[in-house]
């Protein structure tokens, strides 16, 4: 039994673009405990519902996190719509899902790049981000923004995608798919990648369920839980949807699940783009949520299930807005995976949960 030492990890660390601080208790080269410390990004967004009405708050909601911006504005809008009993036009539901799946592709490509950078594969980082730029170009053409889209509103969407643009999206995605398949095959077959990831940070299926892990992190431990399979909104129109899972439960499985989810999202967008119904893109929303009305909602973000809760008080301002984000669910799993790992594997394990600190701390 060696002497234990505490090594601080972060908040400023090259592997993460975000501030996360971990106190790693190490004995020799083995991590025996990990104490996360958060709060560097806390702004107090939930309090802002008191000073922004429910239409204005959507712009705050999408700035909870710049990577999941589309998901948060969608989740918030759906919650307020069910609070007020608003029926969203079918075309708007389709367009929302198309943008949401595009943002999943951009988020996963971003993550694959960062993960490749974490094990020293810097050219792969550049390649993933090069492909991601093409998704951002679609965002820019259809919404005007690259990361913050401001396209969802309570009652529908702000902008339409015409048929020519829908065809162009499918063409661009076909082009991305060829390049992406090459990158994915490299990641999944390369020996140096396997050496760094296979067997690292193992989480069993039982532990994943005990720790309430969500998203690709839990699906890599063979938990087939994906909110998209509930079939709400346009997801219900898909001919087939099976969550991507893997039984290995290690870092390699998490890379693999996210790799395959990109292909799955491309297929979803192609299928939905072919059958977008005609019609309006938004309905006018009038009035205010009734006093005491409550609504909750779940949504599959790129990082996993996100839960939203809202309560009205009879005015245009919500009484309470609460969300539980995927990363806060996954932090316990990360701390478990870190126990007993090698010090050199810490950054790989931290990255494979795809931590989104600004979602978590808000």
């Amino acid at each position, binding site marked *: 039994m060696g002497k234990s030492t505490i090594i601080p990890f972060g908040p400023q660390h090259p592997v993460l*673009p975000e501030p996360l601080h971990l106190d790693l208790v190490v004995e020799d080269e083995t991590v025996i405990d990990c104490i996360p410390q958060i*709060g560097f990004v806390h702004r107090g967004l939930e309090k802002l519902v008191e000073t922004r009405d429910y239409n204005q708050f959507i712009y705050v909601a999408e700035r909870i996190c710049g990577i999941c911006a589309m998901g948060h504005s969608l989740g918030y809008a759906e919650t307020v719509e069910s609070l007020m009993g608003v029926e969203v036009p079918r075309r708007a539901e389709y367009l929302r899902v198309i943008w949401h799946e595009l943002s999943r592709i951009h988020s996963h490509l971003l993550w694959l790049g960062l993960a490749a950078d974490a094990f020293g594969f810097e050219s792969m980082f550049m390649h993933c981000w090069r492909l991601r730029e093409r998704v951002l170009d679609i965002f820019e053409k259809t919404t005007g923004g690259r990361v913050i889209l401001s396209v969802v509103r309570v009652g529908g969407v702000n902008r339409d995608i015409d048929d020519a643009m829908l065809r162009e999206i499918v063409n661009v995605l076909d082009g991305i798919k060829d390049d992406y398949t090459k990158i994915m095959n490299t990641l999944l077959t390369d020996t140096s990648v396997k050496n760094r990831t296979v067997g690292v940070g193992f989480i069993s299926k039982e532990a994943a369920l005990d720790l309430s892990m969500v998203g690709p992190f839990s699906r890599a431990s063979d938990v087939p839980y994906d909110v998209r399979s509930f079939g709400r909104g346009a997801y219900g129109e898909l001919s087939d949807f099976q969550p991507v899972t893997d039984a290995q439960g290690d870092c390699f499985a998490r890379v693999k699940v996210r790799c395959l989810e990109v292909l799955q999202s491309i297929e979803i967008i192609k299928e939905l783009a072919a059958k977008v119904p005609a019609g309006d893109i938004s309905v006018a929303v009038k009035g205010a949520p009734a006093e005491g009305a409550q609504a909750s909602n779940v949504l599959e973000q790129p990082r996993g299930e996100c839960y939203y809760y809202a309560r009205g008080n009879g005015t245009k301002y919500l009484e309470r807005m609460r969300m539980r984000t995927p990363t806060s669910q996954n932090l316990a799993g990360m701390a478990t995976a870190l126990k007993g790992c090698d010090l050199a594997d810490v950054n790989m394990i931290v990255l494979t949960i795809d931590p989104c600190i600004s979602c978590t701390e808000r």
Partner: protein
Amino acid sequence: MAYASKSPWVIHYDGSSCNGCDIEVLATLCPGFDGERFGVINTGNPKHADIFLVTGSVNAQNIDVVREIYDQMVEPKVVVACGICACSGGIFHDCYNVIGGVDKAIPVDVYAPGCAVRPEAIIDAIVQGIGVLEEKAAAMKSAKKGA
């Protein structure tokens, strides 16, 4: 500024940004916008860096971290506030846990506004920052000669 006498290295720190500006800072250094053509390289070590790219506003928890990184950087150094939150607090200016822009913690040389800041704006700010860096280096040199 006619030419830059050195290739400036940058360090990036996320104050309390929403990630939107952080991924744009990284995208700037990637092939799509190729910030590296100005000799810029991203480093994780404050002691190696010349330009400090801060995204997001400062709050009670991270103000010390921002100051610590700034203090560890060697003179001459330039601070670029990337995004409207780093400039003034932006959409979060009236949140209870937001003190304000980065200039509440450390002196800022170049402001790059935008929500999220566009990569073109970051490149502009970095190039402007290189100019400030040259001026600061020249001022240090002449002060040394005078002494």
